[in-house]
């Protein structure tokens, strides 16, 4: 994305000084409610600019301020400092409407992604209603991932940048307690020894239906 500064001097159009680039990144991030990718920044800034470095400078500058420069997946955004939330007029938060099933399903998708519906069902020990998945899809917190290369080619689910933005996560790797859970083996898809009723149901599901018909044309 960014050329080394030396190469640039050869170029006809010299990139603006770093301080100026920082201002530019600042202006663009301030103007945008949604995260902006580094590539997008580069496309808007003068040729030869180094948005990544400008971003890093800007991030440092806003440390401890009322707003912060945060990374959201592949993008960057300015968000108010969480400790000042009390000053804002609260929106009615959508999360209130989320059922326990939806919250658990969301967590399972986030921690186990990419994960199939059958796997979610095995972990929860109960079938996942279509409405739950639909709601999460509608909120754009999850999306369809690749199909799993197993019989029935079931679709998988993964979380979105929108989800990361909502929960203030740089990436899915920053989910709280992820390392510990992995270390404890709790994110493994451990095959049951013999026949557990729940897993049995799941295998049946995958083999027979995998419910691909519900998601047709989406993957």
């Amino acid at each position, binding site marked *: 994305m960014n050329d080394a500064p030396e190469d640039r001097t050869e170029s006809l159009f010299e990139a603006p000084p770093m301080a100026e680039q920082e201002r530019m990144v600042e202006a663009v991030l301030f103007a945008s409610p949604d995260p902006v990718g580094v590539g997008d920044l580069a496309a808007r800034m003068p040729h030869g600019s180094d948005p990544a470095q400008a971003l890093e400078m800007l991030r440092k500058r806003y440390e401890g301020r009322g707003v912060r420069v945060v990374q959201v997946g592949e993008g960057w955004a300015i968000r108010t400092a*969480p400790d000042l939330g009390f000053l804002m007029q609260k929106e009615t938060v959508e999360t209130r409407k989320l059922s326990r099933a939806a919250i658990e399903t969301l967590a399972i998708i986030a921690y186990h992604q990419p994960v199939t519906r059958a796997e979610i069902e095995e972990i929860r020990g109960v079938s996942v209603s279509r409405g739950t998945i639909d709601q999460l899809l509608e909120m754009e917190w999850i999306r369809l991932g690749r199909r799993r290369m197993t019989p029935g080619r079931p679709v998988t689910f993964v979380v979105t940048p929108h989800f990361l933005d909502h929960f*203030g996560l740089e990436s899915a790797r920053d989910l709280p307690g992820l390392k510990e859970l992995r270390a404890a083996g709790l994110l493994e898809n451990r095959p049951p020894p013999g026949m557990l*009723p729940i897993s049995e149901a799941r295998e049946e599901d995958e083999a027979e239906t995998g419910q691909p018909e519900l998601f047709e044309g989406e993957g």
Partner: protein
Amino acid sequence: MTDNLFSEDQTTVAERLAAEALIVDVDGFEGPLDVLLTLSRTQKVDLRKISVLELARQYLAFVERAKALRIELAADYLVMAAWLAFLKSRLLLPPDPDEDGPSGEELAAHLAFQLERLQAMRDAAARLMGRDQLGRDFFRRGKGEDIARVRTVTYSASLLDLMQAYARIRTRDEFRPFVMDRDKVYTMEQALERMRGLIGFAGSWTDMASYLPEGWGKDPVRRRSATAATFAASLQLVKEGHLEIRQSELFAPIHLRKKDIDT
């Protein structure tokens, strides 16, 4: 804890109340695994050290009591009960060297793993929801400055496009765009309008066929369309409470009657 493994009477009143509540609330549970997880809490130990045998006993007792209270349990609860009964016997009896398959310990370990994993996911969900959230604890820019899109539209057409267009015009004579023939279609809106004017007089049961508009009864295509529209309009009027409709048997004539407002 081990004391009350075999003597149910020693459970405390509180525990028994809790168990009762469990059954009454069975609808509130998200499946048998959820019940097992809830039951396992009464053991007050680390999930990794849980006694699956004790858990199986509790679960079976739960199902028994549900039966006694004539609470219908969903099939998967009963499947789990059967499986736990099987597991219990495997855990209690010495292993049969002739039998294949996983040992009782292996099965118990996996169940314990499932419970631990479910609990871990619940904790993770709680931690996730406990995080600062966008729109609640931190905020995005209240009003984004719209990126003005300076859009320059250039139109393209190739010489081939031009020639094809011209060829198309010159060969159009044989071509007639497809248009639905509407003169044989009677719409539901038309039927509805007609029927609204007529139902006031339908005090007694009248064959729906008599409501067909004039001149639509002979041609079969027109009759079909008019009948369908009239029937749809009748249903609409029934739904609105203006009309009653009946049919004595399959394919029998459909009769309509004005609905009395009082009844």
